[in-house]
């Protein structure tokens, strides 16, 4: 059974739909790239999957042991966070909040989980540092560690590499790929970076005027994919 199934999904704001009739399935261990132009509705789709806004019509089903609130989320940075006085440890630990339910304080297990997540993201040495003083790449790792506290199964990432330099971007991609390969975490990534999509994805969902969903191999044979390949070929010359 699929971890995440979208059936005839229609998403949008205030009753106006941005994207209609989406059908796709994500299985455990998949690495799905959602690509498309600006304004094609990628972020709206992501918010709908996360349950932050209701779908206009259609259904989103979770299965294979994945509960709705077990999807880890790496959001785009907000203005609030840019000058937020918080230490790295405090932020990572806040990822465990969903586990707490109505309990007020974090227990030992959750604190260990946070330490393990920081270790995995190689930011243990930054634990006491202030979030707003970190570099962009370090901040993304902190937020990734927080997302790992919230889930062991599925991560949704919203343009995680925007604004990062090429070296840091490559490092972050490598980390995410490792989570997908070694820990078996399903990854859904929203991105502009077509080159990375073709490199890392197992499946691609292309949204825009026409919608494509399928494996990477199928995508490269599709009209959208060939268009991309042609563009890339043009760049190479």
């Amino acid at each position, binding site marked *: 059974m699929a971890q995440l199934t979208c059936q005839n999904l229609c998403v949008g704001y205030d009753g106006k739909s941005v994207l209609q009739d989406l059908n796709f399935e994500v299985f455990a261990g998949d690495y799905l790239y959602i690509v498309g132009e600006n304004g094609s509705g990628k972020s709206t789709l992501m918010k709908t999957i996360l349950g932050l806004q209701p779908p206009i019509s259609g259904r989103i089903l979770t299965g294979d042991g994945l509960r709705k*609130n077990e999807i880890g989320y790496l*959001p785009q940075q907000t203005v609030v*966070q840019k000058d937020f*006085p918080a230490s790295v440890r*405090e932020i990572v630990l806040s*990822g465990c909040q*969903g586990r707490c339910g109505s309990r*007020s304080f974090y227990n030992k297990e959750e604190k260990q989980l946070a330490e393990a997540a920081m270790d995995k993201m190689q930011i243990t040495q930054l634990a006491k*540092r202030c979030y707003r003083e970190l570099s962009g790449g370090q901040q993304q790792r902190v937020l990734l560690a927080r997302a790992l506290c919230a889930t062991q199964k599925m991560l949704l990432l919203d343009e995680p590499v925007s604004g990062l330099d090429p070296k840091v971007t490559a490092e972050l991609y490598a980390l995410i790929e490792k989570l997908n390969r070694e820990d078996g975490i399903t990854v859904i990534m929203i991105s502009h970076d077509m080159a990375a999509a073709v490199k890392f994805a197992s499946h691609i969902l292309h949204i825009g005027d026409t919608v494509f969903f399928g494996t990477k191999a199928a995508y490269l044979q599709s009209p959208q994919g060939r268009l991309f390949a042609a563009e890339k070929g043009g760049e190479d010359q």
Partner: protein
Amino acid sequence: MTAVLEKLTLYWAYPFVRYALIVGVLIALCSSLLGVTLVLKRFSFIGDGLSHVAFGAMAIAAVLQITNEMPLVMVITIISAVLLLRTGQDTKIKGDAAIAMISVGALAIGYLLMNIFSTSSNLSGDVCSTLFGSTSILTLSPVEVWLCVGMSVLVVAVFILFYNKIFAVTFDENFARATGTKAGLYNLLIAIVVAVIIVLAMNLVGSLLISALVIFPALSAMRMFKSFRSVTICAAALSVFCALIGILVSILAGTPVGSTIVAAQIIAFGLSWLAGAVIGGVRK
């Protein structure tokens, strides 16, 4: 120096001085706790807006000749707080505009009502004392002191119990909601606590200066400290300290209580800014 001490010991003998100190310190403590959250959520002016609502509510209570105005003022302020913090999410009127609207509107309606229906002979005096803090902090009854102590204990308890949730919701509301935290509920809780604090604090500094109690300690603390916990603790300590100094100075020098406390906060902010710059310089 001995003269000052003698004068203080003399005043200390009066219960009203002790009451003023207790209430002042407690209110300063409570108002600073949520300051960090409010500043970061871009709601610095909510204190101002809500206190004007409370002012309007007081005017209504006065017109209706309700002797115990506290419950009415509290209810109206809480409702406004809930509405204001709700608009902060995604609505047509953005947070700052909504606050400005409600704040100015309530102020105008309040003054209008007082003007039309007032029974008092000293209207401008009444209005002035509600806006800039009355001397009523020096005329507190034991019942009012106990009420204030009770409310403060409640506010501090709620803050400590929900500290981690408040942090999660403030830092990243979407993430919190996506991972199963009931963000709406905690926003509601924050709104109610803010309203309670503001109604309590109106007695102390009046409705124009309330924002100072809410934001100055938070901003000062944010200059010097790096983690949410240390900022919160420092803000609370600074706020209490400034309130103490402010009340003592106002008693000794005969200055208005509210403005003296705010002046102390401003000086503290300046010093924190310097300290922050020095610490930052040393680290580099």
